């Protein structure tokens, strides 16, 4: 792939998304097992802290419990400190690459999409991460919810150019 193709690909890949692979390195597939391990640990935290609980989400949106505010709030504080330290000390990845950050630009999608997402979050009691964890706990019917989340993503992709941004 030449540089120009790579750049267009990166542009498409990074469209409407936060989480992107910034690394330019090519690795064998088993390097991805690192992410599997982080995912497993993350999934365990999800379950043990009851972040995937429909009840906890309902309590949050009814201001009946501090739990979810504590989880999200302290996660953001730790995240802000981590990103600050990475930038300040110019910390590199384990492969010696510079860690990249990109500024997001505002578009109206963050408002319309955000509101729609919020409706889905409160009714199912799950955002995409907890959906995977819930399926892991044996709530197999949530496979249907995950499937329709994929359908929703596809429909967005199909109508993307016609939607206000």
């Amino acid at each position, binding site marked *: 792939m030449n540089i120009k193709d790579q750049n267009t*690909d990166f542009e498409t890949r990074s469209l409407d998304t936060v989480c992107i692979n910034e690394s330019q390195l090519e690795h064998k597939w088993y390097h991805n097992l690192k992410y599997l391990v982080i995912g497993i640990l993350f999934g365990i935290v999800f379950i043990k802290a009851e*972040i995937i609980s429909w009840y906890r989400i309902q309590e949050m949106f009814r201001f009946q419990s501090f739990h979810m505010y504590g989880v999200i709030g302290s996660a953001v504080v730790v*995240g802000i400190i981590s990103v600050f330290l990475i930038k300040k000390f110019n910390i590199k990845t384990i492969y010696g690459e510079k860690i990249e950050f990109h500024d997001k630009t505002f578009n109206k*999608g*963050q408002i319309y999409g*955000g509101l729609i997402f919020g409706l*889905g979050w*409160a009714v199912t009691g799950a955002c995409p991460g907890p959906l995977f964890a819930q399926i892991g706990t044996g709530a197999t019917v949530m496979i249907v919810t995950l499937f*329709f989340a*994929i359908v929703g993503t596809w429909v967005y992709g199909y109508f993307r150019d016609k939607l206000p941004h």
Partner: protein
Amino acid sequence: MEILELIREPWPWYIAGPLVGLTVPALLIIGNKSFGISASLRHTCAMCLPANIKFFKYDWKKEIWNMFFVFGILLGGVIAYSFLSNPNPIIIDGNLKAELAGYGITEIYGMLPEQLFSWESLFTLKGFFMMVVGGFFIGFGSRYAGGCTSGHAISGLSNLQMPSLIATCCFFIGGLIMANIILPFILSL
């Protein structure tokens, strides 16, 4: 064995929140990856049914790490459920309990009310709104917003991004509207 007993208890927010937050630097340091989950839904589209839509025409193999990550979350669910399950029933707020009882939802255990989220209720009108329409909104909304709770509320806010703050506020407003205004109608169906 005491440690295992302690792990089986529900974890407080001040343990869980920082661990969730540490996922951000962990993914950045092990491979320059920004933390986010809903992108996995898009990669699934790109893999299975790109249908010549530009939005799904990209080199998804570059983002295969994200699929490993979400599969890990699923496995984490299996492990926590099989070995670290809390033996005691979930404790929920009294007002919520009373409200749910008003809709006939009285079996409060596990993570989800089985009376609402089960294969049987999938084929009811209530189940259709809660599982099918709800799922669609999650997928459509998160992509339209450019990220979900992890991408915007955790990653984006960690990097002090204004668009992520706007998105997070809108997630919350949407959630408030659903939980307090629309959900009561759905539950009484």
